[in-house]
C-alpha cells in the first residue's frame, strides 16, 4: 500500500514537472495567461465612431489565429496567447474594455476578409499581411510588425541556405497559403501541402521534405521548441510581410485612431513589453514599430 502511494506520488510529480516544463518552454512567455493591461476609465470618443460604439458596449470582438506559436495560440485554458493577442488587449484597454471582456474569435487565413466584411469581428490581429489585393476588400492599420518568408531545415542540413537551393526539392507549407505559392512559383520547389504548419514538422523530421517555409517568426517558434532538431536556413528573409490590423473598409477614423495608439504603445514602452512577454522569449531582438502606413 505504501509503495503504491509513493509510486503514485512520483507519477504525479513527474506529471506536474512535465506540464511546468512545457508551459515555461512554450506558453508564449511563461505566464500562460498573458498580461492584463488596465483599461482606460470612461474614454470619450466622438459620437458615431466605431471607438465610441465599442467603448459604450463595453466589449469587443477580436479575430486572431489559434494555431500560430508566439502570435496567437490557444492555450490549455482555451484562451489564445501571443504577441497578436497582446496588441489586441492593449487596443481594447484604450477603448475601456478589460481583457476579460474581449471575445476572441478564431480566424483562419481563408476567412479573414469575409469576417471583417460581415461584421463578425470588430478588428483582426492575426499575422495578417498587408497587401494590395486585400486592401481592395478591407482596410489595414499598422503595420505593427514586419515579418518575412524564410526556410526551416533539419539541424544537420548544410545544403540549403537560400531559397534558390530548394529548386526541385520537397518543401512543406500550408495548402493554399501565400508562402506556398511563392516557393513554387518563384523558386521552383515541389510543394508538399499540409493542413497546418505544425503538420509539416513530422515530414521534415523524417527527411521526407527538405525544408518547411512560411514567415520567419512562425518558424522561429518551432525552432525554439526543438533547437536540437531544426534550424532556420538563414536569418535573411526573402519576402517582406508587414502585419497589419484588419478592419472594415472605409472606417478611416478607426484606422487613424489605431495607428495613433500603435505609435503611443511604441513611445510608452508597452509595445516592447508586449513583445518581451510573448515572442521575445524566442526572438531576442525586440523590434522597433515599423513606419505606420497612413494611406
Amino acid at each position, binding site marked *: 500500500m505504501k509503495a503504491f502511494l509513493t509510486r503514485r506520488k512520483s507519477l504525479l510529480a513527474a506529471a506536474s514537472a512535465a506540464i511546468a516544463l512545457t508551459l515555461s518552454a512554450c506558453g508564449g512567455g511563461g505566464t500562460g495567461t498573458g498580461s492584463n493591461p488596465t483599461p482606460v476609465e470612461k474614454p470619450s470618443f466622438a459620437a458615431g465612431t466605431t471607438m465610441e460604439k465599442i467603448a459604450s458596449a463595453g466589449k469587443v470582438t477580436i479575430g486572431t489565429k489559434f494555431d500560430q506559436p508566439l502570435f496567437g495560440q490557444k492555450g490549455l485554458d482555451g484562451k489564445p496567447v501571443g504577441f497578436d493577442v497582446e496588441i489586441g488587449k492593449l487596443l481594447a484597454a484604450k477603448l475601456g474594455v478589460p481583457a476579460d471582456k474581449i471575445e476572441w474569435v478564431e480566424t483562419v*487565413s*481563408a476567412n479573414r*476578409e469575409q469576417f471583417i466584411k460581415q461584421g463578425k469581428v470588430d478588428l483582426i490581429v492575426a499575422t495578417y499581411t498587408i497587401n494590395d*489585393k*486585400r486592401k*481592395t*476588400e478591407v482596410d489595414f492599420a499598422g503595420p505593427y510588425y514586419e515579418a518575412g518568408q524564410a526556410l526551416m531545415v533539419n539541424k544537420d542540413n548544410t545544403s540549403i541556405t537560400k531559397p534558390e537551393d530548394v529548386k526541385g526539392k*520537397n518543401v*512543406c507549407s500550408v*495548402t*493554399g*497559403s*501565400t508562402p*506556398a*505559392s511563392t516557393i513554387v512559383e518563384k523558386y521552383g520547389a515541389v*510543394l*508538399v*501541402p*499540409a*493542413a497546418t504548419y505544425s503538420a509539416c514538422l*513530422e*515530414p521534415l523530421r*523524417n*527527411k*521526407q521534405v527538405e525544408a518547411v517555409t512560411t514567415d520567419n517568426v512562425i518558424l522561429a517558434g518551432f525552432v525554439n521548441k526543438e533547437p536540437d532538431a531544426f534550424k532556420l536556413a538563414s536569418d535573411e528573409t526573402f519576402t517582406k510581410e508587414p502585419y497589419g490590423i484588419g478592419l472594415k473598409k472605409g472606417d478611416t477614423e478607426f484606422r487613424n485612431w489605431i495607428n495613433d495608439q500603435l505609435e503611443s504603445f511604441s513611445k510608452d514602452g508597452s509595445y516592447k513589453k508586449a513583445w518581451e512577454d510573448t515572442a521575445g522569449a524566442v526572438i531576442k531582438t525586440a523590434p522597433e514599430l515599423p513606419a505606420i502606413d497612413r494611406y
Partner: protein
Amino acid sequence: MDVIIESLPQYWDGFLRTLFLAAVSGIIALVAGTLLAAARVSPVAALRGFSMAYVEVVRNTPLTIAFFFAAVVLPRLGVTFQQFEIAAIIALSAYTSAFIAEAVRSGVNSVPVGQAEAARSIGMKFGQVLSLIILPQALRTVIPPMINILIALVKNSSVAGAFYVLELFGYGKQLANDHGDAVMWVLVGVAFFYLLITVPLGYLAHQVERKVAIAR
C-alpha cells in the same frame, strides 16, 4: 468564370492526380477487399477472425485518422517515402478495402445455397467453390454497390489534399487563395472536375443495376 478557363492547366493536372490516386487505390482495394471477403468465409478460424476484426475497426475509423497513420505514424516505423502519394494510396486502399470486403461478402451471401452444395457434391474444394462458382455469380449483384464504393473513393481522395499530396482539392485551395475575388468560381471548377468522374460512374452503376435486375 474566367478564372476557370485561366486555370485550366492546374485543374487538369489536379484532375489527373486525383484520377491516379483513385485508380491505383481502387485496384488495390478491389483485390485486397476480395481476399478479405474470402478470408471471412474461409474454413480457417484465424483468417475469419482477422478479416472480421480488420473490417470492423477500419469501417469505424475516420478517414483523417487513417491518413494520419499512413502519412505520419508509418514513417516513424521506418516506412519512409519521398512521394506522399504512397501514403495516400496506403490510407485510401486500406480504408476502401474494408468496404469492398463487406460488399463482396453480402454478394456471396446472396448466391443460392444450392450452388455451393452442387459444387461441393462434384468434389470441388473451398478455393474452387469460391473462385469458380460463388464469386462469379456474386459479382453481378456486387457490381453496383462496388461502383458506389469507388465513387466514395474518388471523393475521399480529396482528404489527401490535407495530408501532403497535391491533387484536385489541394489545387482548389491554392487557386482560391490566389483568386480571393473569385473563390466561388474556383470551387465550382473543382466541383465540375469531381463530377466529371463521379457522375459517369454513378450512371454506370445505375445501368448495371437495371441490367442485373432484368437478367434475374
